[in-house]
């Protein structure tokens, strides 16, 4: 039984890098899919709106842990033996896309209708209206809540530990099994998460204040 030492702290810090990697993957994947979801939600075709709406409702009504298990075991059913990282990435992508899609849909709808009408009157196609007029403005509105959701993504990566991916939480478990000092170990783990999340939280709030100041 080892004593909790700087060696272990170093091990945890290394694992934190995997947390960051998974977070970035989840954000990238979830962002791409989420953008598609958001665009479908504001589409003029009811079928697209309905399908993505159902997807969002389903995902938001299911625990992330269960989605993770479904992804992990679901993939093995299809015959693939993928690393936990990939399964976790897929699960987090599916999960994040639903939430980001909703957030971004709200931001798109927050752009004044008059903008869309003006673009239409200038003869732009629907795709051009979205790309050149609505989305740039929606993006500005979206920055603050998106950064806020990144905090959720980082925290959600902790569940990847359950399917064996060695990120920060799993590393904490491993160190705990070696040192039997759960309090010290997990407080340190929490501290590392705090270092990742708190700056994002602060940034999100600051961005929101700046956005509201500019709006008025």
């Amino acid at each position, binding site marked *: 039984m080892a004593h909790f030492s700087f060696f272990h702290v170093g091990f945890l810090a290394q694992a934190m890098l995997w947390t960051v990697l998974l977070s970035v993957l989840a954000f990238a994947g979830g962002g791409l899919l989420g953008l598609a979801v958001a665009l479908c939600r504001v589409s003029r075709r009811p079928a697209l709106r309905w399908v993505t709406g159902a997807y969002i409702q389903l995902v938001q009504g299911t625990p992330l842990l*269960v989605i993770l298990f479904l992804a992990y075991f679901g993939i093995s059913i299809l015959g693939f033996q993928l690393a936990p990282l990939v399964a976790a990435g897929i699960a987090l992508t599916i999960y994040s896309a639903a939430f980001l899609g909703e957030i971004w849909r709200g931001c798109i709808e927050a752009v004044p209708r008059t903008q869309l009408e003006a673009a239409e009157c200038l003869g732009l196609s629907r795709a051009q209206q979205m790309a050149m007029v609505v989305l740039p403005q929606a993006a500005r509105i979206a920055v603050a809540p998106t950064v806020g959701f990144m905090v959720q993504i980082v925290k959600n990566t902790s569940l990847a530990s359950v399917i064996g991916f060695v990120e920060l*939480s799993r590393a904490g478990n491993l160190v705990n099994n070696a040192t039997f000092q759960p*309090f010290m170990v997990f407080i340190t783990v929490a501290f590392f998460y705090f270092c990742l999340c708190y700056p994002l939280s602060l940034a999100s709030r600051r961005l929101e204040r700046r956005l509201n100041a500019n709006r008025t």
Partner: protein
Amino acid sequence: MSYSFDFMPVLASWDRLLAGAWLTIQLSALATVIGFALGTLCAIGRLSRITWLRTLVGAYVETIRNTPLLVQVFIVYFGLASMDFKLSAEAAAVITLVINIGAYTTEIMRAGIQSIHRGQIEAAECLAMSKAQIFFHVVLLPAVERVYPALSSQFVLLMLASSITSQISVEELTASANLVQSETFRSFEVYGVIAVMYFALSVLFRIGFWAVGQLVFARRRKLGTAL
């Protein structure tokens, strides 16, 4: 695809899954009630004139909101046990969930309380009402009515997040599924079934909160508008 779906083993263990769901409901309901009380008290502390109290509550809220629930659960269950505070898994789960939802509730209630116009409070003061009466009748009740949708959403999220307590062997729904999965190896079917069960629970909870809201907030029921 060589896999053939077989739901029968899962449905054979239906009673265990149901028992797990029942524990999920109990844990969530208990944590919701206590967490709401804690959050309201902390919101008052957050708005207090006493600086150290404001800072303390602020630190609590920021710490909880910027660390994962899984780690919080480990700290409470394993951490306290190592310091000779032997807690049952269920007790540790409820405590962690209460602390967690308390932080989110604090922010929601703080916003609600701050949304009450100063003029309302002045009018109540000029009617000779005491500070406690003013806080309850003119500040707290309308604040809760105003933030009720946000509160309901947060409590539904709590119920879903309770799945994390399966990691400290609380025999709620996800843990029951893990058990059935380990026996039947019908992993996809089991988790598919509990996904549907969780979805049903979230719908149930939403309806429940809506009903409570209609009952308690007469104005909402009669007028149908937001406060």
